[in-house]
């Protein structure tokens, strides 16, 4: 493999990894702060993609549709937390697994009822639709670069939010000691609702951003779900920094796996997870 091709594959891996980060960051927040295993997280990704499809057709502009989609996703998140999720906080992990699995089925069918079962495409926004030539016969779509840029910006934004703001401090405190935070007069219920909505919005945004390159199709949430869990567990539950590192690691492993060892490409990510967990069970940046 010559240098140019190698670098392009690294670029491919990073692009995939950054998108994974977006989805996984929401999951790690919900899991780490609220202690809920949410199997329906992949469904939010799917809902985001379908929203992008419908809203782009309705509004005409991709970026406006994205903004509108985020608002809708936040609303869905708030509603879902209030209706269902808040009954799960004190319950066993197993019941969370069971209930959120039931939610997956409900979301899948709701999608079928609202949008039907066909495969749809979302047009790449005009300004970014052209490609930059990288080698004599290979070009790279500018949109993919933009996508990576947006994911990176969001990663920085989350870092700022969690480390440098009061809300972030409250979130971090709440994840370590819920009762203490409550006794300090902070409304933990409201906090959880916000965190959950944030998690949903992140996953939905990832789906929206990815829709022009991945298409919009039934079951698209399932593949993303399992990989997101792998990212969260490798990175350390509750650690956004860990999610970023793990996501990039997986993006690169998956890309180079497909290229170098196609016969076991599917296994590569799981081999990586097993190896890391057996070395350090709490994940790379996980606590104790």
């Amino acid at each position: 493999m010559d240098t140019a091709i190698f670098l392009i594959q690294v670029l491919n891996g990073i692009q995939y990894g950054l998108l994974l980060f977006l989805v996984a960051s929401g999951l790690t927040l919900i899991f780490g702060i609220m202690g809920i295993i949410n199997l329906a997280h992949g469904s939010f990704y799917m809902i985001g993609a379908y929203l992008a499809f419908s809203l782009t057709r309705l509004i005409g502009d991709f970026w406006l549709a994205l903004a509108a989609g985020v608002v809708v996703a936040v609303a869905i998140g708030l509603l879902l937390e209030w209706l269902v999720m808040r009954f799960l906080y004190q319950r066993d992990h197993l019941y969370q697994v069971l209930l959120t699995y039931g939610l997956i089925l409900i979301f899948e069918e709701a999608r079928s009822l609202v949008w039907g079962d066909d495969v749809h495409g979302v047009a790449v926004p005009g300004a970014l639709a052209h490609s930059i030539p990288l080698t004599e016969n290979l070009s790279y779509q500018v949109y993919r670069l933009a996508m990576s840029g947006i994911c990176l910006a969001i990663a920085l934004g989350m870092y700022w939010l969690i480390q440098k703001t009061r809300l972030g401090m409250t979130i971090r405190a709440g994840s370590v000691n819920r009762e203490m935070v409550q006794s300090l007069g902070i409304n933990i219920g409201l906090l959880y609702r916000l965190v959950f909505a944030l998690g949903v919005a992140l996953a939905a945004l990832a789906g929206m951003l990815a829709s022009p390159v991945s298409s919009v199709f039934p079951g698209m949430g399932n593949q993303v779900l399992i990989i997101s869990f792998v990212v969260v567990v490798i990175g350390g539950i509750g650690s956004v920094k860990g999610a970023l590192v793990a996501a990039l690691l997986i993006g690169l492993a998956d890309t180079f796996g497909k290229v170098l060892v196609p016969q076991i490409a599917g296994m590569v990510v799981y081999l990586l997870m097993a190896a890391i967990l057996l070395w350090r069970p709490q994940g790379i940046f996980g606590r104790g």
Partner: protein
Amino acid sequence: MSGNKLQFSRRKFLKTAAGGTALAAGALHAPFIIAQPAKLKIGLMLPYTGTFAALGNAITNAFKLYVAEKGGKLGGRELEYVVLDDESDPAKAVDNAARLVNRDKVDVLVGTVHSGVQMGMVKVSRETNVLSIIPNAGAGAATGQLCAPNIFRSSFTNWQTIHPLGKVMMEKGHKTAAWISWKYAAGEEMFQSFKEGYEKVGGKIVKELWLPFPNVEFQALLTEIAAAKPSATACFFAGGGAVKFVKDYDAAGLKKSIPLYGNGFLTDGTLQAQGASAQGLFTTLHYADSLEFPKDKEFRLNYAKTYKLQPDVYAVQGYDAAQMLAIGLEAVKGDVKAQKGIVAAIEKATINSPRGRFTISKAHNPVMDIYLRQVSGEQNKFVGVAWKALADPARGCKMG
């Protein structure tokens, strides 16, 4: 929740559950009453969700169009459809087919699209001896090693549609090629056939790339194609995957530097979504959009009028499946139990299809011309005949 409240809802739940179970048990145990003996039950097992949903719909539409043209009756009998979405899932194939045949008691089994699912259906067809017509899936074994008198195909074998491609590519001066497709039964059969045909005329395959079905993350593999620098790329994709691949190939700048070829599934039923990315692509298939046969013109007009859509190769296959069934049923005056007569009639027939006339091989597969087409606008325009009267070698079939 207080203890009493919990108990109350539990009692209620238990009562409802008991009642519901009793009802369900009654419904399940009741002997299946088949309504009027006069209606013929057609089981349509096709994908109505997922990447092949459009194909399942096209086949269903055209099948029903033919029946409507015949006044709603085949062989003098009215039809009743039992429709089942197989989701292109091979794991459920046997269960689904068995449900149609054993529980719903269909007289004819029509389906499906995905080759892996087809093998499950073939297993059930062979075990139950139900009359079966395959309106798409090209798995060679169905009219090869596992051929059976009650199984017919109105479509193609994977081998047939792509075999002429090697010759076409060589004639256009491409001495080396890369191959890319999904790794499942159909993709692998396509590859074997392409390789056979291409290497026979001196071609060399410099790169072989696979991804799992129905994965559509092509980025890393497109980079590999660029790295290998072949003269051209040959591929097999269909449905939603074909739409994405053609667009991604173009977006990566490869369309200009390394021409793309494939069999017709790459561009059939997908041109509207693919837009500019598909223009000029050459493909081989047993159907094209600008054939001059009167039957084709009539078919296209009727289909467009009824469904407000342009038909594609999948629709033609669905139409022909109904045609073949009609021929068989007419020969036995609608008595679907007289299978020997039905089989004999279809075997001898020449089908007047929109694709041109074709006959049936001893293994029950169409013997037909394969055309070369080129994408122009929203059509796959007929350019020439890539191979005349091509028959699938039917390796391993013990019939005839």
